[in-house]
Structures are given as structure tokens and as C-alpha cells.
């Protein structure tokens, strides 16, 4: 059934909201932004054609408030809602409310979201579709249950506790020994409750030195499921990705075919539509992959897949939501580039302590083979209430070496962010590290190399130095001669 979309409300803020608006602009589709009180002057608000205030700072009153979101769509005469990533993106109740309100939901069906949102059910479905899974238990309510399972299945530490409703690293804690178990369990439950409103927990064996590989899927309403190849997202801190690349440097062509078709098979089996991702953990020594979860939404790192395939995934989501057929088949997809993405979070690169405040100066990288997805502008505030991601930096090249080289230039010579601390020094250290360059790393890369990475932070550059001098001149000009002189 064909439907027309003339105006999209983007139920999000920052980087994802801006990203989606870009494609809407390409398509001459109007946009509505929503904003919480501290986001009144945010970048995504200025970008949109209209904007609706939906509440106070806490997400629960604004970006997670479903009733207000629907009301905003109706008020702004929007006919569709794109949830972006995070917030309500994987909330089947919200998807259903959107549809029930007579609006178009840009994403997979509420049924699929629900099915995959329950990690326990998703794992069963994966097993049914013949997708390899990791040993684990579900519906855990106390730690004795975990101990019994470990004994019965002969599982050793480390294990990982996850929120059944989770994603994005929240409510996910690795446990090394018995002593940590109780604390980790209660923290995971509490975080799960806070982030997803559901404290159901599952526990799995933790694959040491695992690599994180995921497959991008797109599917239409007519049963056509196509994969756009894989991404490697192994470089993580606290279970949150910070560097992603496509293709994966750890797969050969055989394994690549295998993992991509496995993902396609699963998604076809569950009747997936729109864009989504199947995540795997890859045990590189055993050269085996295991199903992790399905992300029923657009992902942060979708841009690198766009760079290697030349496709616009948000555009495809819009087309699918309008009931169009995918205009290509699997054999039409030919990635011909290597792409790299780093996440610029407003955090102290030495300890990941969040750094909020005003971006007093912003100079964005330019030049060949660079793509920037920014959620902010110079002068914008980074409020403490939301995710610390404020910009994605992507680079491409004919091969991995090229893409890394361009990334090095972008971070080290072109990028300037003043006012808040960013992960930039750490990201630069990582892409310059020999283990990263040779492709030999695991999800523990950062924790294993943190001191070394910090020691690689560049000490000084003349741009920063001249600002120190300017600060001195400003102070003396205002205050006059100082006593200590």
C-alpha cells in the first residue's frame, strides 16, 4: 500500500535528529523538531521547518514522553514520525501509538520491535532460525539463579549481565568474580529500569577478546530483505562503541558471506521491514560468530555503510514507510570503499567523565573523503541530561589505510572543539596505535591499552598555545599590572 509522507516529526534531538532532517531536506519533505526546555536553542530545532516544545529537561518528561510526542505531531500537522536512535526508537508501544493515531511510523512494525526487544525471546527465535547463540539464562531474578546456572552449565567467569530490554551498553555489566556479582546485578537492574523501564535481566557467558560485528539489513513490506554488508564495532569503552568501520577487517570473504546471509535469513524469518541490524559477537581465535541481538532501528554507525555502498539508509526507511518496494536486489549492492567512524563524545578522554557546557568554538574538518554528522553548532550548549555524543566524524578511502589516514588528518589538523572536553585525543591515539592499524584488537582494547593511549596524547599545538597567550592578554588588559610582577 502506498502512502505519502509530507512532513516528518523527528522524535529525537542532536545528531540523529539532524541526520534525518538532512535526508528529508533532500526529499523536499518538511520536518518538525521537538525539544525539551534546555534544548530550546539546539541545532536540530533551528534545522527543522517547525518545532514543538514538549517538556522539561528530564527525558521522561520530554523525549520519552509518548503522549506529548503524538500531540506534537498532530499539532504540527506531521504525517509521519521517525524516532532516530535511542529514546523511543525501540519502543513497540510508541510505534503502535503512532500507528493508532493515524500517523506513519518510520521503522519496523511494533510486533517485530516487541519480539526482538525481548532479548530472551530474540535468542530463542535466533536459535529457531539456526543462528548460533551463546549459552546463557534468562529471566534472572536473583543471583542464586546465576550461580546454579554457572554450576550446571559449567560456565566460568567472566559472565555478562544484560537488561533484557537493553541496548546501547546501558544495563550491561561484565562480572569477573563472585564478589562483584551482587553489586553488578543490582546495578544492571537499576540501570535497566531507568533506561528502559523494565528490570528484566539475562545473563550470558562473556566471550573474552570477542569482536563485535553487525550486519546492516534493509527490507520492504513485500518480503524483500537485502543486507548492506557488515560493520565492525569492536572498539568500545564501557560497552559503548566509539569507533566503527566497514567492512570488518577481521572477516575473510567466506565468513563475510556466511555472517551476512545468516543475518538476512533471521530477518526474513521474523518478517522484518525497514532498516535494522543484526549484531554478532565474533570469537576471532575460533573464527565463530554468535548472535547477540537485533537492533530494530537506525543505528548511530549507519553512515559508514552509506559511505561504502553509496546508499541513503534514512531515504530507504522513508521509501519503505511510504510502501515502496526496494528498487534493487542483493546482487546490485557492491561496496567499493573502506569507511571509518569515530564518535566525538563530550567526555574527558582520560577517564570518560562527562564534560557538559558551551561549545565556545567549533571548527569542523573538511577536505576530501570526510563526512561530518554534527548535532551542535558553535555556541551551542551540551546539557547534562542526555547522551554525550555530539558529533560523528566519518572518513572514507579506497582501503583501510587510506580511511585511517584521512581520519588522522581530520582529527589532528582540522578539528577544534573548545569549551568542552572531547574524546578526540583518545580517538586519535587509537587510530595511531599499531594494534589498531594492524586490525588486531578486541572489545577490551581500550581498557588494556588505556595508559599507553593516554601517553600518546599530543601535548601541545600552537592553536591552543596562542589561546593561552590571548587569555593572559585579556586578563592583564582588564585587571592591569599584577602584584607578583
Amino acid at each position, binding site marked *: 500500500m502506498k502512502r505519502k509522507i509530507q512532513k516528518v516529526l523527528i522524535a529525537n534531538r542532536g545528531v540523529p535528529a539532524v541526520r534525518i532532517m538532512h535526508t528529508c531536506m533532500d526529499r523536499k519533505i518538511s520536518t518538525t523538531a521537538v525539544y525539551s526546555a534546555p534544548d530550546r536553542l539546539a541545532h536540530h530545532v533551528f534545522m527543522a521547518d517547525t518545532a514543538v516544545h514538549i517538556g522539561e529537561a528530564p527525558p521522561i518528561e520530554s523525549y520519552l514522553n509518548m503522549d506529548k510526542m503524538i500531540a506534537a505531531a498532530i499539532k504540527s500537522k506531521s504525517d509521519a514520525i521517525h524516532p532516530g536512535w535511542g529514546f523511543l526508537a525501540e519502543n513497540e508501544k510508541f510505534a503502535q501509538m503512532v500507528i493508532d493515531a493515524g500517523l506513519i511510523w518510520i521503522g519496523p512494525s511494533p510486533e517485530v520491535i516487541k519480539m526482538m526487544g525481548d532479548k530472551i525471546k530474540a535468542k530463542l527465535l535466533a536459535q529457531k532460525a539456526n543462528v548460533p547463540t551463546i549459552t546463557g539464562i534468562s529471566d534472572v531474578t536473583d543471583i542464586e539463579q546465576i550461580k546454579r546456572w554457572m554450576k550446571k552449565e559449567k560456565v566460568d567467569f567472566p559472565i555478562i549481565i544484560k537488561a533484557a530490554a537493553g541496548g546501547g551498553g*546501558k544495563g550491561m555489566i561484565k562480572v569477573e568474580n563472585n*564478589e562483584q556479582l551482587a*553489586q553488578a546485578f*543490582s*546495578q544492571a537492574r*537499576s*540501570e535497566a529500569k*531507568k*533506561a528502559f523501564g523494565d528490570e528484566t535481566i539475562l545473563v550470558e557467558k562473556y566471550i573474552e577478546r570477542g569482536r563485535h560485528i553487525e550486519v546492516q539489513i534493509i527490507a520492504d513490506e513485500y518480503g524483500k530483505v537485502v543486507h548492506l554488508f557488515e560493520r565492525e564495532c569492536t572498539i568500545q569503552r*564501557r560497552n559503548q562503541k566509539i569507533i566503527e568501520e566497514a567492512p570488518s577487517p577481521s572477516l575473510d570473504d567466506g565468513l563475510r558471506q556466511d555472517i551476512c546471509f545468516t543475518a538476512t535469513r533471521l530477518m526474513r524469518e521474523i518478517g522484518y521491514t525497514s532498516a535494522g541490524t543484526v549484531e554478532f559477537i565474533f570469537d576471532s581465535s575460533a573464527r565463530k560468530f554468535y548472535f547477540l541481538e537485533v537492533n530494530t532501528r537506525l543505528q548511530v554507525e549507519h553512515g559508514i555503510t552509506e559511505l561504502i555502498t553509496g546508499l541513503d539508509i534514512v531515504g530507504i526507511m522513508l521509501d519503505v514507510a511510504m510502501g515502496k518496494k526496494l528498487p534493487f536486489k542483493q546482487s546490485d549492492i557492491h561496496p567499493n570503499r573502506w569507511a571509518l567512524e569515530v564518535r566525538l563524545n563530550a567526555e*574527558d578522554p582520560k*577517564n*570518560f*567523565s*562527562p*564534560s*557538559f557546557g558551551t561549545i565556545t*568554538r567549533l571548527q569542523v574538518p573538511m577536505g576530501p573523503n570526510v563526512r561530518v554528522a554534527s548535532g551542535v553548532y558553535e555556541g551551542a550548549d551540551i546539557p*547534562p541530561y*542526555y*547522551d*554525550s555524543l555530539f558529533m560523528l566524524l566519518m572518513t572514507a578511502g579506497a582501503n583501510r589505510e587510506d580511511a585511517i589516514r584521512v581520519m588522522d588528518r581530520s582529527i589532528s589538523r582540522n578539528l577544534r572543539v573548545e569549551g568542552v572536553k572531547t574524546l578526540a585525543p583518545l580517538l586519535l591515539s587509537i587510530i595511531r596505535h599499531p594494534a589498531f592499524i594492524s586490525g588486531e584488537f578486541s572489545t577490551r582494547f581500550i581498557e588494556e591499552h588505556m595508559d599507553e593511549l593516554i601517553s600518546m596524547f599530543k601535548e601541545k599545538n*600552537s592553536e*591552543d*598555545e*596562542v*589561546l*593561552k*597567550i*590571548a*587569555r*593572559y*592578554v*585579556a*586578563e*592583564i*588588559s*582588564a*585587571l*592591569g*599590572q599584577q602584584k*607578583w*610582577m
Partner: protein
Amino acid sequence: MNNFIFVKPGMSPKEIVKAVRSLPGVCLTSVGMRDAGQSDFKNRHRIYDLKTLAPYYNNMGLFSAECHGGARWHVGVMNRRESPFEEISILRELMPDVLLQTLIRETNLFGYRPYPKNVIEYVVSKVDIDVWRCFSFLNDVRNMRAVAEVVMKRGRLFEPTISFTAADWTTNDYYLGVVREIVALCAGTDEIILCIKDMAGVGDINRIGNLIDVIKQAYPELVINYHRHITDGLAIPAFLSAAKAGAKIFDVEEDSLVRFYGHSPILSVHAVFEESGIPVYLNRTEAEAAVQKVREWIGHYEWAESPFKGLDHTVTLHKMPGGAFPSSFEQADKGEFLHLMPAILKVMALYNRIVKYFDVTPGSQITWVTCSGIINRYAKERGDAGVKHIIKLITKFIEEKNQDFNSMEKDEQEELLLLFRGAPGDFKNLLLGNYGRLPVGWAAEWVYRSAFSDEWEAKIKERKELSPLDLLKEDNIEKLRNDLTENIGRKPAEEEFILYLMHPKDALEYIEFRDKYGESPLVLPTDVWREGLKKPGDKVDFELWGKPYSIELVSIGSEHEGLIHVVMRVNNKTRVYTVETPRAKKIEVRLAKGAGDIGAPINGSIWRIGNPERGALRAGDIVHKGEEIANLEAMKMENAILAPFDGQIVEVCVKLNDTVREGQLLFVIEKL
């Protein structure tokens, strides 16, 4: 031009000494970059200005440029925010052919207290200087051993120095004894240059010629450098007398730098010597150019000049050295006792006959603090009459009674016994031998009774006969380095560490300043450095690391609640700086410091105090090791704060839902 270079860095001490000996006449050391500034401008001359002289120095044919050491090091760190290491590297680049010279105190190095031998060796081995002029304010040659050994082992030129003053006890025999010890320490006269440091400029014309003559007769091959301040007005004739007696090197400065407490003008000295038939090794054209160059910037330093202007022959009585004048007057000015200066100088003239040593650092400071203390005490307690009274009393004791304590009246004795009661600790250290051996023996017994009261006999027994080099316990250098690392939160550069070894407190301030303001002290012109940009449109252009920069003032806002907004264009981009005035409200954030202080691991908000099992925690509650005592949320991630040990909560320092920053104090827990 290069034919004027006769000694240069890289030559061995032997080659340098030989080159000086073979000159037909005399040569010059320029103190324009150090002692000139110290004597008349409170050591405020910035390397930004001094370096403009370097290209001339490089062609001038100088024996050396004294550009380092003395109080320049400390004032650089404290007041100019320049590092002596930066200065050396700048000058090395701009005058690669000139021997760089320092002035160093034997055990006090560039500071004011004796350092242990291992610190001396460590520091001396890290400073890239060619000529090491080393003196002892006690002429205790034993104290020079550590510096001499390291310098000579490095193949650098050691210039042992005798402190000179004019007194009844400073006879030729006395000085010959000192020279003998020096020659023994340095294994002969072929690899050293001897300096005679007439630091107050008190040697009269014949005395200087006579002393040098006596030394040259005993050691004909010894190369002698005469260092003389000009306050008495007789420096140039004294130079002539010294040159005729065989001195080879003379300390001079640019004519345009000469004021009242420094050194002789280079061009005048050149003219006098040439007229007297003594050839001077000097490229006079370059020297004239340097004299002119000084005029371009010396006006920026008028504020630093001594308010006590003019030459004064009475310096031969009080003997305050040139280098100590500006700082003493600065203190007198700040302490509002400038009017007492004549009385203080009078007491100094008497005091130096009671306790005999040389008025040069740290001796000059001891003299100054002791004598200004005495006069201030009398002025405060008994006014002008009291000041007159004490001067009269000491004069009587010295001049009438020839320092025979017992011949004084009973009440006068009692008053003398209180004279040094309030003397500074360093005066007492001096009496105890903590700096080394006094030149002509310990002070009289009544001085000890005066300084130490009832403990005087015990203190006399404590007196040390050995050099501090042999007495002081070694410092743990790596521990000190770790202390510094901890203090500044990062690994210090080697140079920063050496600054810290010399002056720990001031070095920390310096490092903090430079971390915050970068290379401001090196690149900003002196007017901007001191006063900033004054009116809209004023700008400063400079180069940093090979690239041009420009800072232009757009406007300075008015003060509001202790804040001033300054708008500037930095390389054409407009920037607004918020400057806090002293009236700015400080938001006090207590930081976790002590062992029982629990700090926030990251920035975030405290959403729970206590834990789900026990509920909220309060002061007085007992907590167990590993128990969660609070939880901090940052960008949707939770961070449990755990008790580090079993203990009792003394204080909960935050409220629920407070936003805290990294390191902020959350709890104080007392260990059980």
C-alpha cells in the same frame, strides 16, 4: 666579523685559559644580561628584550656573557615567569659563539639554603653553562668542592671566586690563603680563571692593584677576572690599577644600562684602557650598537629602578653589595621604613665589624634582615631617639671600647645582650656554622649569649666545624620528583623538576602559571606583558612556533558582579574572555584530599545516598568495606561509590541530586 671570536663554547677549559693568557691586553665579560639587571632593575629585564643584544654579543669578541644565575633564576621563576633553561636555549641559538656564564653560590646554588651534595651534583650536571663563576660568602673553599668537581668533569670552565671586602682582617695573607686553597682544589692554575668579586665596590684603587700584584707574584700563570660594582664612583680607576697589576678580564655592561649599583660602562672602559696603552679585545662597533639597542627597551623598566638614586662613597662603610640594593630598598618601601635606610646602613657599617663575613648572598640578606630588624625594633619601641641611642651604643662599643664587652657599663651590656635576640634564623644558622666556616673565626661569646639567650652554651657546643657538604643528608631525588608529579598532576619536564628542587613553592606557582598562560612571558612585548592592551584597536603581533599571530583588543566591558568581559580578535576571530576580578564570587568546591575523604570519580549527579538495602546514610552511620554508600549518575550510566574500608561516616558533604564534579568531596569517613 668572526675574527673577533677568540673563545667559544666547546673549547676545553685549558684552551680557553690559554687563549686569554695569550691576549696582548685585556678582555671583557658583559654582565648586561644578568648583574646589570640585578643591581639596578630588580632582575626584571625580560629575555624578550635581552635577547635583542645577542646578535651583537655574538660578534663583539667578549670573553663571556653573564646571563644566568644569581637571583635572576629565582626572580625569573617568581616575577618574570621565565625559566632559566628557556633563556639558555634562546641565547644559545642567537649567540652560538659566546661563552654563557652563570653566577652560582657554592652550596646554595641558585637558592638560599645549603643543598645536599647529591642535589648540587644533580642540578649542576643539568645546566648547560660554559663558565661557572662560583663564590662563597664565607670564602669557605671547602664548600665549592661539589660544584667544582661536576663542572670540571663536564669539561666546562670553573671560575672560583674570592669574595672581597675592605676590612682590617682582609689582609693579603688572608686572601693568599684562600687562593692557595682554590689552587689546591682545582689542581693548579691551567684550567681555571680566578675571579675577585668586589661585590660592593669597596676596594680602593691602590688596594686592588696591590692585592692582584701579590696574587700574581705567587701564581704568575693565574688568569684573574676583576668584578667590581661602581657605587663608590671609583670603579674605572680601580680597573686601571687592576689591569696594570695583571688582571686579564673585567666585568662591564652597556653604557645605557649603567645606573648606580651595577658595573662600569663598556665603551668608557674601552676608551680608558686604550688611552692608557692597554689593548682591549673588543669589536667596538658592535658594542656601540648594543648600547644603542638597549635604549629601545630600557624605558619599560624605569619602575624597577631604585628610588635611592646616585653614587655614594659611603658604600665603603656599610658595604651593601650592588645586587642587594634594589631588593633591600624594595622591602623598605613595601614595609614603609624607607626613611630608616640611613640608620640601617649605619648599623650595617658597625655590624660588619662584629660578625665578620662577606656581604654577598646569602650573607647580604642575613646582614640586611638582622640590621633592618634592629633599627625597626628601636624605631617602633622608642622612636627616633631610640634609633639614635642604639647607633650611639654600638659605636661606643666598637670605636671607644674596641669591642671589649666587659668594659661596657652593666646596663649597656644588658642591652647588647638583647641586640640579636630577635635576629633571623639564618643569622643563628650562620653562628652555628651551618653555612660553613666563618672567614676569621667564630663571633665573640656575647654574640652567642645575645642570639641564643640561656641556650648559648649548648649552642656553642653545637657549632659545626665541617662543611655543609659533609653534613647534610642526601635528598631522595626520585621521591622529590614523585612529590612534584603528584602536585601538578602530570609528569614534570626535567627542567621543571630542577626549578622545583631549587624553589619548591615558587616553582609550583610558575608551573601552574605556564600551564595556564603558555608562552606569554616569552612572546609578548614588555608593555603588553605588564599592562595589556589599553584601548580598542590596540594590538600585539608575534610569532609562535614559526607562525604569525595577532591579538587585537575590541573592547573591555565594565565590571559586573566581579566579572569583566574582554572582547578580542585573535587572528581575526572574535573571542570573548570572562575575567574574574578579585571581587568575583568564588564557588567553593571542596575536594577530596585526605585518606578518609571520598571523592566523586567523575562528573555527574548524586541520585542516591546510601544503598537500596539500608536506605539513606547519615553522619554517624557505620559502613563496611565495599558497601555502596552513594550512586552517581552521569549521562545515563550509574557509578556506585563504595566504602574503601570499614568506617564511620563523619560527614555527608553533598545533598541528594547535587551535581558534583570529578574529585569533589562526597563523604568523610573515619576508619574503624
